[in-house]
């Protein structure tokens, strides 16, 4: 047993840590977030140079063959900067879906562009009402002449504004009720987009598809397993980000309470606040442990058992991180007093990001309820 990082992971950690520390302070992040594009294209090219965009892809297409553990290491560091670049949507969600579900030709055609930083993607997987349940998807594919078209609506699609292509989950054109994945040009005729900022500093869009030309991703029109695997990776990615954010919030709170004086003493001398920070610390560690468990398990293998264990692990993780993030986020704000609720301080923005991470890919209530129901049915 060994929880040490391997060489590649150490390199990822160091390079991402250095990048955030040197080039991604809070003011800079806010500037990117408020810019027209909502992130920095220069950074995106840097991500490509550093190999981060290649992480989950197979070597034969120019990737690094990384697994969930590698992704975890990178995202924990990037989380500390509250990055606004579309990494999650391009690489972890849509790119990953192509890697896992695409045909050899599709991978050949698309992955090189992603790795090189030329191609950005968004993943229109779940719909607003579905939370975690892909069976409630309503977007419909159908045949039209020699091709395929999509009709339907996808809400709160992360980073669709900067995407060149979309990976869309829809009911199969074979009308068999399957959920399949389709590739669509983001600017194709029939795509109506409503872009808006999100309250954690990123961008998202509501998309309406009216007879939009589409291409089936992969050979099969049953993409349920691919989508689940992609969501598991995405849960690892955002949870790792959350762990990075929580580490930073804890450090910031410890630091702040040592400096902030009331009643002529640093407020860190009040025992209740010390215990509050110990609670934060314990939650950070428990969340990290669950993250290790989930990343190792999800990166495991493709046997039926391994897949079942991976699906369980992502639920455990999303719940634990949701819980930890709530405690750490709320306590950090509380201990900063009035400063904690200002737009000026990074702590508030970390709190926002943690809150939004809980709503992504199923909140802790949704995962816990699913787990309870699974146990009751067992």
């Amino acid at each position, binding site marked *: 047993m060994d929880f040490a990082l391997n060489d590649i992971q150490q390199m990822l950690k160091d390079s991402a840590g250095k990048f955030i520390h040197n080039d991604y302070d809070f003011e800079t992040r806010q500037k990117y977030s408020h810019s027209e594009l909502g992130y920095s294209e220069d950074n995106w090219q840097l991500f490509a140079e550093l190999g981060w965009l290649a992480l989950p892809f197979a070597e034969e297409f120019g990737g690094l063959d990384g697994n969930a553990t590698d992704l975890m290491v990178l995202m924990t560091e990037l989380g500390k900067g509250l990055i606004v670049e579309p990494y999650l949507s391009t690489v972890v969600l849509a790119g990953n879906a192509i890697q896992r579900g695409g045909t050899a030709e599709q991978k050949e055609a698309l992955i090189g562009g992603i790795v090189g930083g030329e191609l950005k993607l968004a993943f229109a997987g779940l719909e607003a009402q579905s939370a975690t349940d892909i069976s409630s998807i309503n977007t419909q594919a159908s045949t039209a002449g020699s091709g395929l078209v999509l009709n339907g609506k996808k809400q709160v699609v992360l980073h669709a504004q900067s995407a060149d292509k979309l990976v869309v989950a829809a009911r199969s054109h074979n009308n068999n009720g399957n959920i399949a994945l389709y590739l669509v040009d983001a600017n194709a005729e029939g795509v109506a987009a409503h872009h808006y900022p999100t309250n954690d500093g990123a961008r*998202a869009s509501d998309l309406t598809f009216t007879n939009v030309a589409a291409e089936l991703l992969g050979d099969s029109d049953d993409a349920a397993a691919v989508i689940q695997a992609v969501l598991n990776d995405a849960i690892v990615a955002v949870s790792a980000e959350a762990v990075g954010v929580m580490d930073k919030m804890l450090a910031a709170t410890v630091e702040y309470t040592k400096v902030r004086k009331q*009643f002529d003493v640093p407020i860190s001398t009040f025992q209740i606040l010390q215990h509050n920070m110990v609670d934060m610390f314990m939650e950070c560690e428990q969340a990290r442990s669950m993250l290790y468990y989930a990343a190792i398990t999800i990166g495991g293998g493709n046997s039926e058992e391994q897949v079942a264990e991976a699906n369980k692990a992502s639920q455990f993780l999303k719940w634990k991180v949701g819980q930890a993030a709530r405690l750490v986020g709320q306590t950090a704000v509380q201990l900063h*007093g*009035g400063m904690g609720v200002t737009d000026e301080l990074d702590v508030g923005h970390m709190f926002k990001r943690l809150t939004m991470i809980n709503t992504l890919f199923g909140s802790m209530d949704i995962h816990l309820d699913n787990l309870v129901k699974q146990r009751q049915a067992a």
Partner: protein
Amino acid sequence: MNINFSEQELAFQQEVQTFFREKLPESVQAHIDNGLSFSAEVTVAYQKALYNKGWAGINWPVEHGGTGWTPTQKYIFQTESAKAKAPRQIPFGYSMVAPIIYTFGNEEQKQRFLPDILASNTWWCQGYSEPNAGSDLAGLKTRAVRDGDHYIVNGTKTWTTLGHHADWIFCLVRTSDEGSKQKGISFLLIDMTSPGVSVKPIITLDGRREVNEVAFQDVKVPVENLVGEEGRGWTYAKVLLTHERTNIAGVAVSKQRLSALYDLLNQPPAGCPDLKNNSVFMSRVVQVEMELKALEFTDLRVLSSVSTGTAPGPESSILKIKGTEIQQALDELYVEIAGIYALPFVPEQYDEAGYEPRIEPFFAPNAAPHYYNNRKVTIYGGSNEIQKNIIAKQVLGL
């Protein structure tokens, strides 16, 4: 023990319901459904409507134009007001500075300030906290130095809620360094238009301007604006803080928000996750419901002790802690029910000019900003940690 309303009380309830039905525009009520704060104009219009009805001074003595209501009537009014989704009277004038003026002020001050507060002709804000005096309020440094018929005030107040709308600010200022920190503090009323007063916005996590930094540079304040005696400001303020704490539980408003939450669960708007069949979520909702019921009865116990002439004591501190915990628990439930639609940040959607295309469900994009902003309720008015210190000391004798 008995909690039934009498004939007269039922008649009063009818009258209150009629008032809200007739005087409260639907556009105003919609604010509550969307977790929005009311604009200054809407608030003043509402306060004036209350004034015209003779209901502005809910807690004031009758001699100053107060309602003279019994605790039960106040309870009825608050419950109906929340049900009707009415704005809240801005507390700074009505329930913070006015009690100080009618209790400790002189005749001239009562004449000069109280009628305009009651009629909502003047807007007041509270100048207590400073950058380095938050929980330790007595550590405040804003200084007022006597110079003939004036005080010359220098210093900085912060977190001044709605100070950008205010005509007047009531301040705790330091007039002496002798003796204990508390002893050198005086209570001063300052005209916001005085030369040397500047107001700078502080933007909160919801992206809005609600609080301010108010700086005083050589501001001349006539000595007649001193309330009571020099050096007694701390004592006056403590009485006032007790008032603030009893009004902070917000039971009626939480009841309304809970019932609105059940409406959303029973008829989930398109795009919201189905949480009614989620037993984890539902168990959180029902727990809030039960905590709130207990708090309502704690509140009623305090109310009834007040009616027998006892001032709200330190045990009223539990109202603030429990009340704010419940408010924040409700905020979390609303974020949950907004689902993925908690993400869009479109504050313009709630402005007069609107935002197209609207994001539906309409309330959802404000659920998270409201939750973020409302973290304040466990921080201000004496943070919940400070409240517990008070209970430990004054109630448990620790």
